[in-house]
């Protein structure tokens, strides 16, 4: 029996009839041709989160990002101009295509600050706004006009301090694309949470499989059983998992969950070090002293069911950005960057309010260490899934009501690919038509 109310239609899944209730075909996670289509249809057309504004503290600050999900070798520079404008450019010199910003190893990301960009090859120079300002031995060139050779821009927009890029010049603006969830999250004090722990992992699984793992917590009482005390683990496994609330708005989705461990009702439910440091997987128990994180101060998209037992909300912004807010006032983000049909790079960032003393610092340390312990278990399970679905011995899998967001993810990704295929077919038909004329 449900402990938390479900929609009137009887289940979360049937609340969105377009998702159906039949087993789901996972060929979309094992077919190399399908991945190539996803790259064109999704990763070259949607807004992709590449970092927080705090990574660009002053005029001239920059960082580079390798974007293999968009295309092999694709690299961008994200920087801040003197007037505070944040821009993105292809990391490529207009002279003969050398990579513009890199140190030692061209494939590694770098960051820093500079007054201008100078190419290592022939010293062509670019201003912070991308204008070409200097050509070495300019008079050796033929009718060259510097105005014709600025750095090639990539669309770059900022939402609540999160920097996004989009490789489709015709895409709708970021804010519009963030939709109702984006609007409903505005005002959360993200800018106060600037103490960052970042993680990276190369995962041998399709990018959607890791999102699958993070948009259901049906697995939590089982896969992570050993991380709780034995009594607590047995109780959790018996009860299972039910979300407080699910919601879907267009391409994006969210899951709202219970959060009894921060702080725990009973100290015997948690491990000895958690009792001393007041922290654990759900983060530091003691709220930092900032505005905007108390239950009645939260923006409307957070804890949508207005449940007093609320613990965390996980927002899944299509295609590959997870934003997860925890009740005690911290958040984390995930990005999943496909590098092939069965490989991707997983990035995670944990954001806390900067600690004021060693007690707060060690409390955050325990949350960060705990995060990695769980991430390792989650990551390893994925390879075990990828290899087995890859055999195609079975291609369709039943998903339960607590896995409704997985249906939505695969459905949405498929819709992008189908639309792309239809557009390509239409273009081909037109071209063929032209040939016949």
């Amino acid at each position, binding site marked *: 029996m449900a402990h938390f109310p479900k929609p009137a239609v009887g289940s979360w899944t049937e609340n969105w009839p377009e998702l159906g209730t039949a087993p789901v075909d996972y060929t979309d996670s094992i077919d190399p041709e399908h991945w190539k289509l996803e790259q064109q249809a999704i990763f070259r057309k949607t807004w992709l989160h590449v970092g927080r504004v705090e990574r660009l503290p002053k005029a001239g600050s920059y960082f580079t990002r390798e974007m293999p999900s968009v295309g092999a070798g694709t690299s961008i520079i994200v920087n801040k101009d003197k007037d505070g404008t944040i821009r993105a450019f292809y990391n490529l010199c207009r002279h003969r295509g050398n990579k513009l910003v890199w140190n030692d190893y061209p494939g590694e990301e770098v960051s820093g600050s500079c007054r201008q960009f100078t190419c290592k090859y022939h010293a062509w120079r670019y201003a912070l706004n991308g204008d070409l300002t200097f050509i070495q031995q300019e008079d050796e060139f033929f009718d060259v006009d510097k105005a014709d050779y600025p750095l090639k821009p990539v669309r770059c927009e900022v939402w609540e301090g999160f920097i996004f890029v989009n490789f489709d010049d015709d895409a709708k603006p970021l804010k519009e694309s963030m939709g109702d969830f984006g609007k409903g999250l505005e005002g959360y004090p993200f800018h106060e949470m600037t*103490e*960052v*722990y*970042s*993680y*990276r*992992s*190369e*995962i041998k699984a399709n990018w959607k499989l890791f999102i699958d793992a993070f948009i259901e917590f049906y697995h939590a009482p089982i896969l992570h059983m*050993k*991380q709780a005390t034995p009594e607590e683990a047995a109780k959790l496994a018996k009860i299972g998992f039910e979300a407080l609330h699910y919601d879907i708005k267009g391409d994006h989705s969210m899951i709202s969950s219970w959060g009894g461990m921060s702080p725990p009702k009973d100290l015997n439910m948690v*491990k*000895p*070090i958690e009792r*001393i*440091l007041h922290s654990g997987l759900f983060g530091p128990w003691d709220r930092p002293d900032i505005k905007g994180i108390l239950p009645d101060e939260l923006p409307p998209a957070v804890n949508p069911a207005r449940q007093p037992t609320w613990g965390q909300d996980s927002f899944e912004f299509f295609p590959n950005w997870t934003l997860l807010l925890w009740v005690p006032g911290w958040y984390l983000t995930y990005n999943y960057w496909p590098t092939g049909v069965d490989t991707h790079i*997983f990035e995670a960032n944990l954001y806390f309010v900067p*600690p*004021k*003393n*060693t*007690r707060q*610092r*060690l409390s955050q*340390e*325990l949350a*960060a*260490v*705990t995060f*990695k*312990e769980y*991430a*390792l*278990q989650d*990551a*390893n*399970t994925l*390879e075990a899934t990828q290899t087995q679905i890859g055999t195609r011995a079975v291609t369709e899998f039943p998903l339960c009501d607590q896995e409704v967001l997985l249906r939505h993810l695969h459905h949405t990704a498929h819709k992008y690919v189908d639309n792309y295929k239809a557009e390509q077919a239409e273009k081909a038909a037109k071209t063929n038509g032209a040939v016949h004329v």
Partner: protein
Amino acid sequence: MSDLDTRLLPAEFADLERFSDWILATEPERYAKRLASSMDEMQQLYDAGMARLEEVMVYLDARFPLHDMPDDAKRLMHLMQSVVMVSFPVEVWKQPRVLDSGAAWVEITREPVV
């Protein structure tokens, strides 16, 4: 040399100096040390560190701002961060590695360093 030149930790915590090879400033160093250590070694650090953890926080927070600690106080923090690092092997896994983590590898790429 005076006592001040040779000691690693504040005098009140001199007994923890026997764990000096766990005084490591960054997560990759602490994680590597964890994987390279026996359960017995980690249990000893855990037992000694857990017994003093509360006292360490009280001591440091009464004396120094977090971002302006003398070197011996910083080393004490680094040692306590190692206690946090070994807590999972000792309290949960009973082995240095995360259970069921196989070949998976997660690396920290940016972290605040005390």
